[in-house]
């Protein structure tokens, strides 16, 4: 069966809260602020919202609480998925299916986290999230995403000759973009020597290989494309959405850890969009850690396997490069909102609102969720400017 979602749904509004290390407010308050900002961005009457979606790992407010707080008395559609960054783009993809099918008209999707001040990933300050692999790993002192991705990175780097020079280039490139972004939490440029001098977290990762744990919320409004054209901002069309999974990091019928779940999902994402990687003007690649950028450049087909590090080092992903990547500074320098600031940045770029970091003539953007090593799922969106 063909999967015909092409351009039927749109992102009509985006909303941010401030990014901080301590919001001082609940995740409910964060969610409501971001949602209200997204509705104001679109110019939509909140009474018309009839769907709510999010994903969580036991760290945020559920959708019924948000819906009630917003005065949505009869939500026609919801999704409240258990999952981390691999699920981020899935929520927006599912909302697109919902509005395209008529299950809902106006869906607000959000992620609201106090991931620095309250619920840090990986057990620092709280018990680890329940997962089937925990019993096999925690007794060995292995629980946190930096450790899990470091394990992937070591095998990947060994196999393909990727080095700290390449990982450092990812971190430095993203910081160059952050210097052009008022919202970014870390804006001061640094040198390769600074990168090498930053403290070890879990070898082969230094501090500057790791994303910024952040308190923030982001919301997006999804509706049918023709409905979006009646709202305040130019619609950003959802050209395609894709979902992938079926493996876990530690046992998965895949003997090669240097290739992610995205390698199997990306061809169907592009096929259902009628596009190829060469059509993409800019990419927001889930960068929980530096290594995820070269890995996904390869697995989404922008370069051959093993060449992602050289691709970054060549400047291809930097400002003015042939494929600008993470133009907001990414999770490494703007802040970490679990995939959602990638979606919001892609929308801002396609609307021509990115200011000093605007990619000239941006028409097609790829935005990706976590590539699936932790949690066993991934998801991504291809977005397109309407005109």
């Amino acid at each position: 069966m063909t999967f015909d979602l092409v351009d039927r749904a749109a992102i009509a509004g985006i909303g941010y809260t401030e990014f901080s290390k301590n919001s001082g407010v609940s995740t409910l308050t964060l969610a409501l602020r971001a949602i209200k900002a997204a509705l104001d961005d679109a110019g939509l009457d909140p009474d018309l919202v009839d769907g709510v979606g999010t994903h969580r790992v036991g760290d945020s407010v559920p959708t019924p609480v948000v819906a009630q707080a917003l005065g949505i008395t009869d939500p026609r559609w919801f999704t409240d998925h258990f999952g981390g960054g691999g699920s981020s783009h899935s929520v927006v993809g599912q909302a697109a299916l919902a509005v395209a099918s008529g299950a809902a008209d106006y869906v607000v999707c959000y992620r609201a986290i106090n991931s620095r001040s309250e619920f840090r990933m990986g057990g620092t300050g709280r018990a680890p999230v329940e997962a089937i692999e925990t019993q096999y790993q925690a007794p060995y002192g292995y629980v946190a995403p930096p450790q899990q991705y470091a394990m992937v990175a070591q095998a990947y780097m060994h196999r393909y000759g990727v080095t700290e020079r390449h990982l450092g280039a990812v971190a430095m490139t993203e910081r160059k973009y952050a210097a052009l972004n008022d919202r970014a939490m870390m804006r001061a440029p640094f040198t390769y020597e600074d990168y090498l001098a930053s403290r070890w977290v879990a070898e082969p990762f230094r501090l500057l290989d790791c994303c910024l744990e952040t308190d923030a919320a982001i919301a997006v409004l999804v509706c049918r494309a023709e409905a979006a054209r009646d709202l305040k901002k130019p619609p950003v069309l959802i050209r395609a959405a894709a979902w992938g999974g079926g493996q876990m990091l530690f046992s998965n019928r895949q003997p090669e850890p240097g290739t992610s779940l995205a390698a199997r999902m990306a061809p169907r994402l592009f096929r259902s969009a009628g596009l190829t990687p060469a059509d993409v003007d800019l990419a927001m690649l889930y960068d929980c850690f530096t290594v995820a950028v070269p890995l996904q450049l390869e697995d989404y087909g922008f370069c051959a396997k093993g060449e992602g590090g050289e691709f970054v080092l060549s400047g291809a992903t930097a400002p003015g490069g042939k494929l600008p990547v993470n133009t907001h500074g990414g999770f490494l320098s703007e802040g970490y909102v679990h995939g959602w600031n990638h979606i919001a940045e892609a929308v801002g770029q396609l609307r021509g609102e990115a200011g000093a970091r605007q990619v000239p003539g941006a028409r097609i953007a790829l935005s990706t969720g976590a590539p699936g090593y932790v949690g066993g799922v991934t998801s991504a969106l291809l977005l397109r400017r309407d005109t």
Partner: protein
Amino acid sequence: MTDKPLPQPDRDSAPYWEGIAAGELRLQRCADCGAWRWPARAICNRCRSFAAEWVTASGLGTVVSWIRTHQPFIRSFADDAPYVTVEVQLAEQNDIRLIGRLADPGLEPEIGQRVRAEFTRDPALIVWRPIG
């Protein structure tokens, strides 16, 4: 330190942890097609048979990756840091990979290194000893 996380067996994994306490690496194996299952679970992901037996594996494997943790994500491991964790691919089947530690904190990890399971007591866990 005594407050390190202990194994938390569930209804599927209890025989695995009993094996380790007895000094054996016991794994589930499909009684129909012979594929090894990891972690323990009801169905074979090759032939979809529910039939399985618990078999003592060779305990031999290869280090496919390793990390050295400096930041104590678990506070009870703070005194160990920096410490090495390895990912070991078992000789039996190339998609079975166990997270563990080397037998001696002074050992340097290396990808491709062949290792053999050894067993600790209190807590009962696997550690990996490099072999020639």
